[in-house]
């Protein structure tokens, strides 16, 4: 039989037992809907997590540290495989060299130091971080209160909301006020004493002295995200100042002390770490390798995101399995409906065969009926699943609003999920139709015609 005639007959048969077939199709729809709703939540959560992480500007950044840095400072330490390269200082020369590597946008030092801030004559301890001008466009400062730094060397500060809450009950009122940053400036000691090897206590030899200093900063903004989050080993920075400003402070940092302990001090300024921003996250991996070849430690959050992706794959799989349970039940519904239809249409099958229908014609007829139920169920299921996802999103946002939190996009139905669900629905329905179709095809026409 031609495809069009086959479809005509199948649709006519489906219409004839409209209630039963509609209920079966609804079963498929509910199954697909639960699958789509579950997966859309998985996809939505994944997108939410990736968005938050990429807003932190860490996915296109490689963190470079000297090879001889301390281990166990709370930072993940990559395994050293290329031991033939000698360890190198992370100084200005190194910075320039890294800048010349292909696909590098910029290389800037990570300046972070733990210090004291005075506000309204009260002391507060926090971590200060220098922010490069490029972070303006990273998305991390989207939706901030106030403004970004007016210039790269302005004496201005942006507060992370948690720190702002420490300073005042009404964080927005802080914008425009002034705070005092107290820090330890590193001053080089011009020349070492005579060749006297027995050094007096406090004398650091060819080292530097530390002088307390103060700087007044104007608060110009409050940000809710964590633009300088996570990596660095010194905790999350809550007070952000322009990178240029931070550099000129020459504040003593952790690596200075480390160098003294190791007796590696020189008058050259070294960095505890450099951030290398790459044009695209896809180039991070190869660049990471070439930085390691230069004799530095390199680490990117791509490694961390890999495990995140693994987590979401497993999460999606679990959601998919739970969602599929309903679809499995719906499959039984299709088998049941079609087996019932064989009983009911036994005589009709006999007539079709007497009129010249081949076994394959009868088989295809039942197959198409199963496929049509699957397709229609798939379409309504995707719609239903989308509505369900929206409803869950809506409910969640209502709850978040009550907790005075920002709304989030919890569920997401990308086009591939729609196609996948439709394909899956038809595939499952066709396999459900396999048994009934072959049973109908094998029906003996003489027995079928005798059936009352």
């Amino acid at each position, binding site marked *: *039989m*031609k495809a069009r*005639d086959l479809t*005509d*007959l199948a649709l*006519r048969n489906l219409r*004839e037992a409209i209630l039963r077939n509609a209920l079966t199709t609804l079963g498929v729809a509910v199954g697909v809907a639960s699958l789509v709703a579950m997966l859309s939540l998985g996809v939505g959560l994944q997108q939410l997590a990736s968005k938050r992480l990429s807003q932190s500007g860490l996915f296109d950044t490689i963190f470079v540290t000297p090879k001889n840095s301390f281990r166990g400072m709370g930072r993940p330490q990559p395994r050293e495989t290329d031991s033939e390269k000698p360890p190198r200082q992370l100084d200005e020369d190194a910075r320039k060299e890294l800048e010349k590597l292909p696909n590098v946008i910029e290389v800037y030092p990570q300046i972070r130091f733990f210090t004291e801030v005075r506000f309204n004559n009260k002391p507060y301890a926090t971590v200060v971080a220098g922010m490069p001008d490029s972070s303006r466009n990273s998305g991390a400062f989207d939706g901030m209160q106030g403004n970004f730094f007016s210039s790269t060397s302005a004496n201005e500060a942006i507060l992370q909301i948690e720190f702002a809450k420490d300073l005042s009950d009404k964080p927005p009122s802080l914008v425009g006020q002034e705070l005092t940053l107290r820090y330890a400036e590193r001053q080089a000691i011009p020349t070492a004493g005579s060749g006297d090897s027995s050094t007096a206590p406090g004398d650091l030899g060819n080292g530097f002295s530390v002088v307390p200093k103060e700087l007044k900063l104007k608060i110009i903004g409050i940000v809710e995200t964590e633009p300088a989050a996570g990596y660095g080993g010194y905790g999350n920075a809550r007070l952000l100042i322009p990178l240029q400003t931070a550099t000129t402070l020459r504040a003593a940092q952790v690596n200075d002390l480390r160098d003294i302990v190791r007796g590696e001090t020189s008058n050259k300024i070294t960095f505890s770490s450099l951030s290398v921003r790459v044009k695209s996250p896809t180039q991070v991996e190869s660049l990471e390798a070439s930085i390691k070849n230069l004799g530095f430690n390199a680490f990117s959050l791509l490694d961390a995101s890999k495990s995140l992706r693994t987590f979401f794959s497993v999460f999606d799989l679990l959601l998919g399995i739970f969602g599929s349970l309903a679809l499995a039940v719906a499959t039984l519904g299709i088998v049941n409906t079609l087996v019932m239809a064989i009983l009911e249409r036994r*005589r*009709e099958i*006999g*007539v*079709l*065969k*007497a*009129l*010249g*229908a*081949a*076994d*394959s*014609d009868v088989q295809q007829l039942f197959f198409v009926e199963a496929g049509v139920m699957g397709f229609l169920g798939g379409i309504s299921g995707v719609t239903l699943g989308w509505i369900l996802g929206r409803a869950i999103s809506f409910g969640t946002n209502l709850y978040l609003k009550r907790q005075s939190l920002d709304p989030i996009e919890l569920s997401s139905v990308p086009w591939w999920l729609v196609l996948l669900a439709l394909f899956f629905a038809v595939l499952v329905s066709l396999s459900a139709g396999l048994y009934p179709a072959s049973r109908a095809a094998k029906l003996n*026409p*003489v027995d079928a*015609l005798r059936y009352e």
Partner: protein
Amino acid sequence: MAEPQPAVQLDRVSRHYLMGETSVRAVDEVSLTVGRGEFLALLGSSGSGKSTLLNLMAGLDRPTAGSILVNGSNLASLSSLDLARYRRNTVGMIFQSFNLLPRMTLEENIELPLRLAEVDRSDRSSRVREALERVRLTHRIGHRPAELSGGEQQRVAIARALVNRPKLLLADEPTGNLDSSTGETILGLLRDLQSQLGMTIVMVTHERALAERFADRLASMGDGRLLGTSPAMKVTGE
């Protein structure tokens, strides 16, 4: 002059069933020849094996032994797909209970064999009308079977059997569900088709009187065996 090739030639055809341990010989070594354009009536009481024999000729069932030659090909050795083609193109069949599909209109019922034979859509409508004209029911084309009398339904079934222009028409008790005068009309129609289209007709019936009037030859069966054949008396009753 050589004898023309017969329409149907049965040679020692048997059909046995297993019912539990015992074997039932529904048709037992029947040899029979039906000539081209002949109207043969198969007579016998119920259980005599006449319907089983008809199903074998229709290609709905396969013989346990023997050969059934229709237009030179042996049905016993055809594949199931070829048997389906044979049913589609070479034979038309009508039944005691008409076997029209109740949810389809007359037009759709008659169109069904054309769909199965993959006849072009553009030709179908004219072929359906032609078949309905032969049974004089063109005016009921959009009706459903339940809206028709028994005689009319059997005429629709005949139209459906004719629509693929078969050479052989097989009728299984076509008057069994009809009153006697309607039955006569139906058999008159069959005989008209035989003479107008030169069709070969094999009809199973247990009404000897009707068979005598309309068929050319009678074949009697009992206990699965062919008891004998005789020419019909052609008593017109006028």
